[in-house]
């Protein structure tokens, strides 16, 4: 009887499998490409590292990021991921996408003696977390009997409650995880034009076509107090006072903007008593109102100007005139932090005590807005005159904007500033969105792809993605770094009028009366 070789042991089998399944590294070790001297600038353009010798072989974004973090003396746990823009020596061009081989990129752009020039890199800190791309439809929720005009997620990313306002005169609250309705808020007699969660998530404000503002308790779905009447036209926009400005004993305040032809006022209300605090007026209907982190109330109006009032004193402080047609929308660089208040997406649970909440809300605001000891809250305005503009209303000296963004071929409908305050996205009637640098208004990318008017755009919390909604029934997700489309979310049967996102969940609604949640 012939000898039979025993079957391979488990270990042998595993090793064989590994050998056959993994790709062997057959690439040649890269020849020594030499080194270069790098100067690394921070966000504001100040040098972090004046000159440092780096091997070309080691010049990857990850290594450079580690270098910057070590240089700034951070602990391993506090390391921030950085993205680097390469300033090509001797040219004005800045390359925004870091290549796999820096040397070949420099050679492509005609830099021959790469090892002898100092190459300037500007480091842009990125969010430490990363938002997943929404790629499929999670829920299609029917319920509203008329078109959905506005939607907004609860400020806490973990709660995942969605509020929508509709043309049937109701606002509804939905559970984002299960896609089920929780409450129907009935009371308005006409369309609900705006829905805003308070920054602590305990109240919901709705503004309606019938000229009233109502406050609701999202836990029970019951109204709080009576309808706040005073506007004579419709209420097209409402804004909550940022959490860190809520005064003791008085509770939150709310600003509402009156549109229509008889009403040109912005009213601020004491929410707890339903009393009017101040009435500010414009020359023509108001289109959008925002409440800044320094207690300024900003309002864009059809009279072509943007006004800022001090909400405490009740006086006008800025009057920004530039646009030659009505101003459609305004956005603040602090929109995201003011809206989310003390809910930090990184922390596990919200702070327990009142003082802590205010402290965290203030810290989050200052992290975005404070440069040195100066608070700069950027304001961007989108206008019907085909342009957008960036302003610094707090430190404004000469009544001029920081930049005027020209490039759109039709009216600009909506804009958003990224949560880290570096990017600005505009979108409008010329079927595409554009990305700009929010700080100096430099043009970055045109996001082409929609075949209808782009109605709204929002950034994800990590400022790496942009979601746009359009008349062509689609939502599109864009990579802000390369300006490429990442995902096309199709499924709506008609125009998409409202979109909002929290974490990886995107909610949208529009003319086809269904709310859709994408993940």
């Amino acid at each position, binding site marked *: 009887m012939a000898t039979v070789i025993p079957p391979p042991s488990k270990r042998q089998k595993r090793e064989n499998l590994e050998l056959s399944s993994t790709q062997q590294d057959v690439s040649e070790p890269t020849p020594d490409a030499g080194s270069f001297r790098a100067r690394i600038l921070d966000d504001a353009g100040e040098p972090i590292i004046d000159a440092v010798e780096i091997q070309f072989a080691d010049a990857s974004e990850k290594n450079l990021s580690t270098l910057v973090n070590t240089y700034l003396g951070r602990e391993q746990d506090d390391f921030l991921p950085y993205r680097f823009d390469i300033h090509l020596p001797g040219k004005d061009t800045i390359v925004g996408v870091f290549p796999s081989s820096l040397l070949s990129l420099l050679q492509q752009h005609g830099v021959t003696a790469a090892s002898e020039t100092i190459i300037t890199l500007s480091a842009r800190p990125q969010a430490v977390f990363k938002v997943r791309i929404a790629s499929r439809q999670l829920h299609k929720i029917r319920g509203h009997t008329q*078109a959905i005009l506005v939607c907004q997620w609860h400020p806490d990313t973990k709660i995942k409650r969605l509020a929508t306002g509709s*043309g049937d005169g109701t606002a509804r609250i939905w559970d984002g995880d299960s896609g089920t309705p929780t409450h129907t808020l009935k009371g308005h007699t006409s369309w609900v034009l705006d829905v805003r969660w308070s920054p602590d998530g305990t109240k919901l404000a709705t503004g309606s076509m019938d000229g009233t503002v109502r406050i609701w308790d999202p836990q029970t779905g019951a109204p709080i107090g009576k309808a706040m009447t005073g506007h004579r036209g419709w209420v097209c926009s409402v804004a909550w006072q940022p959490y860190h400005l809520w005064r003791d004993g008085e509770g939150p305040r709310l600003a509402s903007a009156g549109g229509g032809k008889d009403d040109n006022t912005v009213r601020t209300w004491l929410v707890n008593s339903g009393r009017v605090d101040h009435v500010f007026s414009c020359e023509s209907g108001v289109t959008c109102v925002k409440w800044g982190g320094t207690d300024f109330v900003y309002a864009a109006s059809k009279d072509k100007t943007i006004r800022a009032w001090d909400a405490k004193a009740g006086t006008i402080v800025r009057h920004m005139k530039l646009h030659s047609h009505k101003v459609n929308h305004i956005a603040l660089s602090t929109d995201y932090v003011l809206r989310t208040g003390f809910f930090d997406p990184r922390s596990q649970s919200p702070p327990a005590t009142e003082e802590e909440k205010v402290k965290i809300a203030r810290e989050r605001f200052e992290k975005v807005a404070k440069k040195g000891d100066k608070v700069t809250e950027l304001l961007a305005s989108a206008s019907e005159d085909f342009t957008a503009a960036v302003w610094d209303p707090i430190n404004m000296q000469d009544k001029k904007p920081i930049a005027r963004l020209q490039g759109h071929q039709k009216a600009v409908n909506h804009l958003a500033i990224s949560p880290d305050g570096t990017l600005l996205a505009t979108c409008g009637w010329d079927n595409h969105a554009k990305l700009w640098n929010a700080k100096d208004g430099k043009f970055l990318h045109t996001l082409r792809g929609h075949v209808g008017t782009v109605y709204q755009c929002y950034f994800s919390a990590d400022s790496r993605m942009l979601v746009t909604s359009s008349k*062509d029934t689609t939502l599109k997700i864009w990579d802000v770094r390369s300006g490429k489309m990442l995902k096309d979310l199709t499924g709506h049967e008609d125009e998409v009028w409202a979109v909002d996102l929290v974490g990886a969940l995107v909610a949208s609604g529009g003319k086809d009366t269904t709310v859709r949640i994408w993940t």
Partner: protein
Amino acid sequence: MPQNEYIERAQKLHGKRLDTEERARKKAAREGHKQSENAQNLRGLRAKLYAKERHHQKIQMRKQIKQHEERNVKGNAQEKEPTNPVPAYLLDRANPTTAKALSSQIKNKRAEKAARFSVPIPKVKGISEEELFKVVKTGKKVAKKAWKRVVTKPTFVGPDFTRRPVKYERFIRPMGLRYKKANVTHPTLNVTVQLPILGVKKNPSNPLYTQLGVLTKGTIIEVNVSDLGIVTASGKIAWGRYAQITNNPENDGCLNAVLLV
């Protein structure tokens, strides 16, 4: 009937009369007198024709005057509140009313599988080949074998079609019975628009008829709907849509169809 452009030629050769402009001015100035005289004195059929023409002219004139008056009015005539809900940023905006208002009702219907394959006219009378084709017997060779046919019903012939040589042309589609456009009705909007035909998708009687592009009642045609601004589910502008012919084009001399949505 003028033969050739002899007036222009004479003017080019010899120039105009020196008093041409004055004569034209005078003629125009007397136009009113002339019209009045005609209106008073013409009798019989001439008077009828004249009155009809004048009536038509006056309608046009009044319309034009009205247009001018409307143009002169400053500001918005009246601000109407839109009847369908729109978000705050679309309020107060003069939206061009498109025929796009495809209600979600039809769209829901489309989502149902059953609705997708039902057409407005499910059953049509079959048309025999004897009825559709006329045998051509002209010419010695042709008469002997009689292989040539003339299509007796309306047809759609694509824009880039050229007829084949006589020797090889088996089916003749007469020029007088060719159609390029169809009056297409949108079933829910109740609007009818004239749209160019792109092709014949299916003639239910016979696959050969489909190939020949024969247009009879119940035939499914593809029409160019790009003017209507209909958008597909994936957000592209819809270009071609199917429609079904609802009349007998050979009797009516026009092509009526209903859009399949």
